[in-house]
């Protein structure tokens, strides 16, 4: 790809990262793969495909690009846009089975919330292995012979990626806010407002480690952000002209609106993060029916937050770190015994089958489509701290 095309692609993928960008699904060669080369799979978000390709530079790998509607793997799997149907489709349409002599397929671990491993194995004859949570670990994962390590299963966002996400939010939110201010007041106010809001958003993301971003105190972060952005905007305006009340009032209104938008999913920037929007204030937690657990440990292998652990003697799973749970549902989807489910604070239960069939989206359908409280959950071991 040309340097210009690369640059434009980077701009599109970074500034407009909130929007899907699809590349053609199908089989790609990295290096010169042969019959024994590993087969990896990813979604068809342009940024993902580019980064996976970069991460595997210098190796010989078959890369299957599944149709995830141009959305990154985790969001697509959580939103029902990357399922086992899409994986089976690309395995079959690519003819990969005729190109390799082995039958091992490495799926991104973060696809586990949407892709049912067993169905892929049944229908394709490929044994599915979960790769690492982050693609920076792909090379090491392949060097280790396709065996994952506990620390590679943990999902985390390094600071540079938090700043990318800040840019993803700051670009459209500040542009929109600036345009509104320009339309109502004038260009100066628009520019000052956009610059101050963008800087504030960067500041919040940079300080996420220290700022309250979830829980009851998160409102302090949003309020502080609104006050800071307004003060900063007013200071910028004061540099060029004496301050007037109306523009500052407008800044306060647009900044508060922008912070409200960000507050919907500030901490995770994922559609299923337990934000107020998803759960409508009704918190749900992971719960385990210990009698059903056979210790298959599928859940342990897909959890991106190390929530679940095998207990030594009993050879069963326990919810070891309930507070770290993201409610992504990967463990519930993969459990062969339906031993895991979600439970709302008001007692309603979301069974595994519902979690598999009803994907979480921004409007919280999983939260809505739930049956009345069930009486037969007495033996459940509850995860999660709050709400009960």
């Amino acid at each position: 790809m040309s340097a210009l095309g690369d640059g434009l692609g980077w701009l599109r993928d970074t500034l407009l990262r909130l929007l899907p960008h699809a590349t053609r699904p199908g089989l790609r060669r990295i290096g010169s793969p042969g019959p024994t080369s590993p087969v990896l799979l990813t979604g068809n978000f342009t940024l993902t495909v580019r980064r996976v390709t970069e991460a595997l530079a210098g190796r010989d790998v078959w890369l299957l690009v599944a149709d995830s509607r141009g959305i990154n793997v985790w969001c697509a799997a959580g939103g029902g846009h990357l399922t086992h149907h899409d994986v089976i489709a690309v395995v079959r349409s690519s003819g990969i089975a005729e190109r390799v002599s082995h039958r091992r397929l490495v799926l991104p671990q973060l696809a586990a919330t949407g892709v049912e491993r067993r169905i892929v194995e049944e229908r394709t004859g490929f044994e599915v292995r979960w790769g690492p949570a982050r693609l920076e670990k792909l090379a090491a994962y392949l060097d280790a012979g396709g065996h994952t390590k506990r620390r590679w299963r943990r999902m985390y966002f390094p600071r540079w990626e938090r700043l990318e996400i800040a840019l993803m939010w700051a670009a459209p939110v500040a542009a929109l806010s600036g345009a509104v201010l320009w339309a109502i007041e004038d260009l100066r106010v628009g520019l000052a407002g956009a610059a101050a809001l963008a800087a504030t958003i960067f500041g919040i993301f940079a300080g996420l480690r220290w700022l309250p971003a979830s829980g009851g105190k998160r409102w302090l972060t949003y309020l502080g952000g609104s006050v800071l952005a307004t003060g900063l905007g007013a200071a910028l305006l004061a540099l060029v002209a004496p301050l007037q009340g109306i523009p500052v009032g407008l800044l306060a209104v647009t900044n508060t609106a922008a912070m409200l938008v960000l507050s919907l999913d500030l901490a995770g920037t994922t559609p299923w993060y337990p934000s107020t929007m998803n759960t409508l204030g009704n918190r749900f937690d992971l719960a385990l029916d210990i009698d059903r657990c056979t210790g298959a440990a599928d859940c342990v292998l897909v959890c991106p937050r190390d929530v679940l652990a095998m207990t030594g003697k009993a050879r069963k799973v326990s919810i070891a770190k309930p507070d770290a749970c993201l409610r992504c549902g990967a463990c519930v989807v993969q459990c062969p015994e339906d031993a895991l489910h979600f439970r709302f604070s008001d007692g309603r239960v979301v069974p595994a089958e519902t979690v598999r069939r009803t994907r979480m989206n921004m409007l919280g359908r999983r939260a809505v489509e739930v049956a009345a409280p069930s009486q037969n959950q007495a033996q459940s071991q509850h995860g999660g701290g709050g709400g009960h």
Partner: protein
Amino acid sequence: MSSYVYMKVLESTPERYDRGIRLLSGGTIDALWAEIAAKVAKPGARILDIGCGTGGLSLACAERDAAVTGLDKDAGMLSVARKKAADTGFLHAPRWLEVGVMEMEDVLSPESCDAVVSCLAMSELLPEERAYTLRQAKLALVPGGVLMLADEAAPEGDSARLWWRLKRAPRVALTWLLTQQTTRPMQGLADEVRAAGFDGVQEARATEGDFIVVSATRAARP
């Protein structure tokens, strides 16, 4: 209405799909389903609906006492189809299968269908998926069985197509803003059906030229 670009908005919310698609088509989608059903759905006929979505075409066939199997990879759309079917008493209750088109070989027996139908689904597939789907459809059909595919199509003639594109542009833009996706009107579907080895391939336009309906038969055994 001249196009179905809002499909993507509707697909993201299965519960609202039917209301939306009726609104967009000005009611013509019901007429199209009825038109196809009238041609293929005889009492007891075994009909396969590929990409059945919320079951509009499937239920139109079931109303004529056909035994319908609807397949779709979207569990949300199928749950709407199931609810709609449960509200109506059919002679043969429709069967719904959550599978993608590339899984047809897993769920279909050879020569098990008298007709294969599909509405607004072929344009959603990659060319290689479409080729596979048509091969599987042919295997699933009995000799002499009928294939009938309806999809959105641009009108013929340069000026008509330009006018159609202009009319469609605002809705394409709005749909893209809301969903970042768009539909792809079909071209060359009849040729692909011919290439898959079907006989008697015919292409007809329906509902003011916005739909093409491609029909064909699997050759009877010599």
